[in-house]
């Protein structure tokens, strides 16, 4: 029995279900207890002891059905060769029909079949199937395994390595359609965000612990310790009320940055109200708020709506100056406190009026301003890119290439927002981070950390 379980566990592991040795021991122990009868309870037993994740249950069912029906016929009771001959018949018939159609009228055939697959091909396949032995199949499998994961989409930043006119041209011809998120992407994002939340939460907790100094609130301390005979076991301190950081996000949704914006939207959707107040806007030529939609709609639905151009017209060219002016007029007055503002876009203004004074006024009201661009630094000076101009008003300009970088940026921002609580540990943490980051934005703008001093007095003295 142990051997059967071990083999079954191996089969499960091959399907990607993680089963620990302890769990297979549990299964063996459970089976030896007895008291079960029938196939279903035993299946339930194996599932209870071996599978520890909801998502793995369908895979388990499959493996179980396969493993414990070895040597029996398959579900439909059909022979694979029979199936193939049936398929050949269907294809032949369909091709005849298609030809009839073509001779009668110029209509499309009812069922469109790839022209290159003919009935003969399938027959060849049938012949091959018969002559093939198992080893060949295994070899093909191995080769496939080697190639898995190597077919990747080209990284988005490649576009910008070419000169801007060709980029615009090529993108104009094949408008890249925004695909809906796959479940894997959603799960990935969930994981990235939850990891980030865990990190942040821990730090916030630590910070709160460090906060246990300050002026003593005498009255409240006495009240609190009444039951301990006024011996102050529990302290109460005077503290200012904190509020969640407020965040405003402006996302460019024009085609040139859509791939990056997608992930920004997804990140926002996952973050929404879990940690901070977020107000999200999208813009192309005009600006629109999508906060309520982010809260209420499934993210794929929202993405489709944006893609159809229902919220902002996507056929226009983006006009940053206009957007900043509009934001200042309509929304900035209504914002409470000093929100942090994130702008996501490539700052390609299509030679419109830059109106940087609007951005300057926004900057005055904002507590912090961060610009995220998907474009590599080398191409910033080419074409209609205004990031150098706009960037001078921001506290920080960063390049983000993928989800990880994006989440790190947001995390970083979070620390910055909590900065006014400044504690010593916090400062230490930031110092560490400075060492980690060789491409510091400050060195880029101020060119301070460029060349190391040639002569160091302290070292000299030691000699």
């Amino acid at each position, binding site marked *: 029995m142990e051997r059967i379980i071990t083999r079954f566990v191996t089969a499960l592991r091959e399907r990607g279900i993680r089963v620990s040795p302890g769990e297979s021991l549990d299964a063996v122990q459970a089976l030896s207890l007895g008291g079960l009868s029938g196939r279903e309870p035993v299946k339930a037993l194996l599932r209870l002891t071996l599978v*520890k994740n909801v998502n793995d249950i369908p895979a388990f069912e499959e493996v179980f059905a396969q493993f414990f029906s070895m040597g029996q016929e398959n579900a439909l009771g059909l022979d694979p060769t029979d199936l193939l001959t049936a398929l050949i018949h269907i294809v032949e018939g369909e091709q005849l029909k298609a030809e009839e159609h073509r001779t009668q009228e110029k209509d499309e055939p009812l069922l469109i079949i790839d022209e290159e697959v003919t009935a003969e091909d399938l027959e060849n396949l049938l012949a091959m199937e018969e002559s093939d032995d198992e080893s060949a199949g295994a070899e093909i499998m191995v080769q496939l395994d080697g190639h898995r994961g190597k077919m990747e989409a080209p990284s988005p930043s490649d576009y910008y390595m070419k000169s801007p006119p060709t980029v615009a041209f090529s993108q104009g011809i094949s408008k890249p359609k925004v695909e809906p998120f796959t479940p894997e992407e959603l799960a990935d994002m969930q994981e990235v965000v939850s990891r980030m939340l865990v990190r942040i939460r821990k730090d916030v907790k630590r910070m709160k612990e460090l906060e246990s100094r300050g002026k003593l609130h005498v009255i409240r301390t006495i009240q609190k310790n009444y039951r301990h005979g006024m011996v102050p076991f529990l302290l109460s301190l005077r503290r200012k009320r904190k509020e969640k950081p407020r965040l405003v996000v402006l996302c460019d949704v024009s085609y040139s940055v859509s791939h990056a914006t997608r992930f920004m939207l997804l990140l926002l959707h996952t973050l929404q109200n879990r940690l901070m107040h977020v107000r999200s806007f999208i813009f192309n030529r005009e600006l629109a708020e999508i906060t309520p939609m982010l809260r209420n709609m499934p993210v794929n639905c929202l993405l489709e709506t944006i893609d159809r151009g229902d919220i902002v017209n996507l056929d226009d060219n983006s006009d940053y100056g206009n957007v900043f002016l509009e934001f200042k007029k309509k929304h900035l007055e209504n914002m409470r406190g000093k929100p942090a503002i994130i702008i996501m876009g490539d700052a390609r203004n299509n030679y419109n009026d830059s109106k940087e004074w609007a951005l300057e006024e926004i900057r005055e009201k904002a507590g912090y301003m961060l610009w995220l661009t998907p474009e590599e630094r080398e191409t910033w000076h080419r074409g209609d890119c205004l990031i150098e101009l706009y960037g001078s008003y921001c506290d920080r300009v960063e390049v983000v290439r993928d989800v990880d970088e994006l989440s790190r940026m947001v995390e970083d921002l979070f620390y910055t927002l909590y900065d006014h609580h400044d504690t010593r540990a916090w400062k230490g943490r930031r110092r560490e981070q400075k060492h980690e980051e060789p491409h510091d934005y400050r060195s880029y703008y101020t060119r301070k950390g460029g060349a190391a001093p040639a002569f160091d007095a302290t070292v000299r003295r030691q000699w």
Partner: protein
Amino acid sequence: MITELEVKDVLRRGGYIADETISTAVFLALRMEKPILIEGPPGVGKTGLAKTLSEVMDFPLVRLQCYEGIDEGKALYDWEYGKQLLYTQLLRTQLDSYLSESADLRAAVERLSAEESLFFSQNFLVQRPILRSFLSEKRSLLLIDEIDRSGDEFEALLLECLSDFQVSVPELGVIPARNRPLAILTSNGTRMISDALRRRCLFLYIGYPEFDREVAIVRTRFPELCEGLARQMVEFLRKARELNLRKPPSVSETLDWAQVLSILHTKQLTPEVVANTVGVIAKHQADLQQVNDLARQILAV
């Protein structure tokens, strides 16, 4: 020696209709003394299973409701500082006379430290749910409800308790369980439970029940409801679950609705009946409309 089928029967007597997976899980948990981790959408009877079990097996129910920020002081044990202080105050005179016999300060300290265990004894220990269920005279049922609401730290705290059924108190040492409780953990899946905890439990997923089982559940709880209406009701709710509602109606909603319909002496479902009682099934403004539309679609003759 109880078997899986007997477990099923016992549960049925308590008014809980279980399928093979549930009864097998309970059977294994009883025999292997392993905790069960139950996941599933809200309202499918995760907590209900624990309650019924404690009733029919005659295990006293010890319930621990998890929330964000729960810690060992709330879950395992706590020291009663107040009582400790009070005792030292009251015993001061005795202590004085006791210590006055010793020659010098060093001897006094030695003498006092010999009696230290007096102040850190079970006498001053407040038992919180987990320790209480471990130390109960009878085998108990420990229900740790909605564990996904607690934090990682709390999960880590549970590892020792659930795998070895013991609690370590630094001042006292390890306290093993007098009677190993039947532990049931429930989770709504709002947060991923760590693999370490999953590994120590039997993992039971309870989804929405099959048609026949749901009808049986309604029939056992409300025998006065006629068979035809019960079937019609369940069928309607199963369709409603496919609607992509914000809060799909669960088994608890089915039972609530069955109760409402039996109070109203309804004989058959019509769009009007659904419209009048829709608040029992749908819990969001947007959902109300969708359910009403569905009723008009299916039930209109």
